[in-house]
């Protein structure tokens, strides 16, 4: 009996014989946190937008110069171009006024226009976030497909060669920066084997390399987390009892191991998804993918405040909703959660 599992919360077996929860209660159990999350999402998004604004203005360097450099390119930018930018965009107006303006527009669901390209921020985000979502949406399942089976294998055969092999692989993948990994894949799969195009975004084939690059980095972490939690569950009395029942190792793991192991994995994966942004930046730059990570870096460098604010706002919403989704998933897997939350 592992010390970890011996003591469950005192509430663990406290229900009266008749104390079953109604179905309506179940729906509420799911709905209520969702609703409060929604409110929280709005708050975080606004806060992030405002902080983004403040940070952008706190950064040293002249906004007009930065904008001009991004807009006109390095060969043209000069004090004249900067002065023109300043006048055109009204960058001299009081900051409070600029922020208030932004807030006023946000209420009307208008995120303003990019100071660099002049396109509406919403439109830029729609394209770029869309591409990034595509990338992340492909990378995550891919990483789960790679990382989880490896982690599970390592956890089940802990201390033996699959464990060591997976650890080495994970460490290797975690020690190489995303761009080096991407390049290696590019050289191997595109240049040597000619299986996949190395860049661009014409079709699904182009999606494979960048998402694989991302996925491998993610899989490194998720395989470790999966390994730890599978190892813990494998040693828990729950799995022991499942074996004693006569379930085959496969059935025991499938029916009792995975779900229990999934709870911490999910929680960590949710966190990881958020941290994905950094990897996305690199991968997008490397593979010429027109996504938000890349655009955001440019926007920050160029002091394109509305674009940064808009991105931060959308990402704020995204983070909270993502947290909510992870919570919901945990809730569905782990029935104890609903009771604790209530």
């Amino acid at each position: 009996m592992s010390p970890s599992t011996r003591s469950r919360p005192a509430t663990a077996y406290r229900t009266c014989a008749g104390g079953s929860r109604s179905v309506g209660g179940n729906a509420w159990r799911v709905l209520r946190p969702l609703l409060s999350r929604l409110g929280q999402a709005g708050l975080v998004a606004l806060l992030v937008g405002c902080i983004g604004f403040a940070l952008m203005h706190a950064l040293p360097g002249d906004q007009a110069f930065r904008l001009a450099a991004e807009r006109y390119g390095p060969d043209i930018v000069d004090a004249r171009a900067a002065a023109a930018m300043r006048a055109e965009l009204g960058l001299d107006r009081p900051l409070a006024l600029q922020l208030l303006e932004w807030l006023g527009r946000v209420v009307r669901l208008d995120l303003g226009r990019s100071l660099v390209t002049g396109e509406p921020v919403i439109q830029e985000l729609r394209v770029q976030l869309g591409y990034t979502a595509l990338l992340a949406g492909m990378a995550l399942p891919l990483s789960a497909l790679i990382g989880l089976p490896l982690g599970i294998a390592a956890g089940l055969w802990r201390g033996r060669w699959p464990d060591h092999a997976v650890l080495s692989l994970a460490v290797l993948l975690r020690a190489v920066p995303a761009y080096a990994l991407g390049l290696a894949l590019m050289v191997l799969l595109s240049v040597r084997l000619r299986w996949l195009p190395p860049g661009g975004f014409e079709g699904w084939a182009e999606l494979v390399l960048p998402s694989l690059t991302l996925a491998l980095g993610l899989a490194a972490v998720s395989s470790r987390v999966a390994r730890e939690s599978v190892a813990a569950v494998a040693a828990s009395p729950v799995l022991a009892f499942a074996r004693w029942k006569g379930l085959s190792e496969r059935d025991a793991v499938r029916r009792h191991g995975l779900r229990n192991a999934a709870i911490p994995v999910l929680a960590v994966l949710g966190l990881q998804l958020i941290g994905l942004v950094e990897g996305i930046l690199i991968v997008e730059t490397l593979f010429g993918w027109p996504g938000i990570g890349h655009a955001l870096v440019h926007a920050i460098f160029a002091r394109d405040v509305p674009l940064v604010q808009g991105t931060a706002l959308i990402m704020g919403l995204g983070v909270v909703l993502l947290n909510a989704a992870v919570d919901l998933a945990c809730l569905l897997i782990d029935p104890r959660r609903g009771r604790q939350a209530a």
Partner: protein
Amino acid sequence: MSGLAFGRRVAALPCARLAGAGLLLLLLGFGLVGPWLIEADPARQDLMASLAPPGARFLLGADHLGRSMLARLAHAVRLSFLLSGLTVAAAGLLGTALGLLAAWEGGWLDRGLSLLSDTVLALPGLLLVLLVIAFAPGQILPLAGGIALALWVEFFRVTRAQARSLLARPHVEAARLLGFGRAYILGHLILPELAPILFTLAGFGIGGVILTVATLSFISIGLKPPTAELGGMTSEMLPYLAEAPFQALLPSLFVALAVLACHLLAGGRPR
């Protein structure tokens, strides 16, 4: 995250931990003693010896500017460990402390801190790093500070979630009844339970910070030249991967060793 109650690992072979500790010591030794032993100046260039292969003059070869890789690596290991150690320590302490506070106090403080952490998560990490770096561009402390500012959230969230379920456990209730105070409960009952997962996070963190610096150098926000630092070297040497794969991969190898060492060390826990 009561499921993470399972998250405490089963015992691994103690020899793995020994190996991890040994490896870490070796690396630290290289970083601490290396710069003294190796007389070569890590900034000294010989453009005619650009990318010289390993040999008598350059034991580990030369980089694109004809600088000794050995000398640079020794300095880089020291600096990178300092940087990532500093960053992870700062982020870990702050995140853990705030996580414990939020879990203990609950209520408004908890909600406020959670809101803050969500906000930081949602803010582009780069923005924070840039902001702090702006105070002293190219220097190590602000860089560490900037990364820590984004990194603490991870520790906070894990600590808070874990501590919350731990605090709800009967043995904590029992400890309170027995008259133990907050310091004892957090220090003796909660932290030891959290330690393995925090160490795992820190292990990832050490490597992660170096990678972050590499990423930052990739977009030209790094330590100023000619500083030798593993992350910066990794991205600096990238264009020469095909020509001089050995020198180009060396910094990554050191990062890999560091990450491996941390994992081996954090991975096993004595029973």
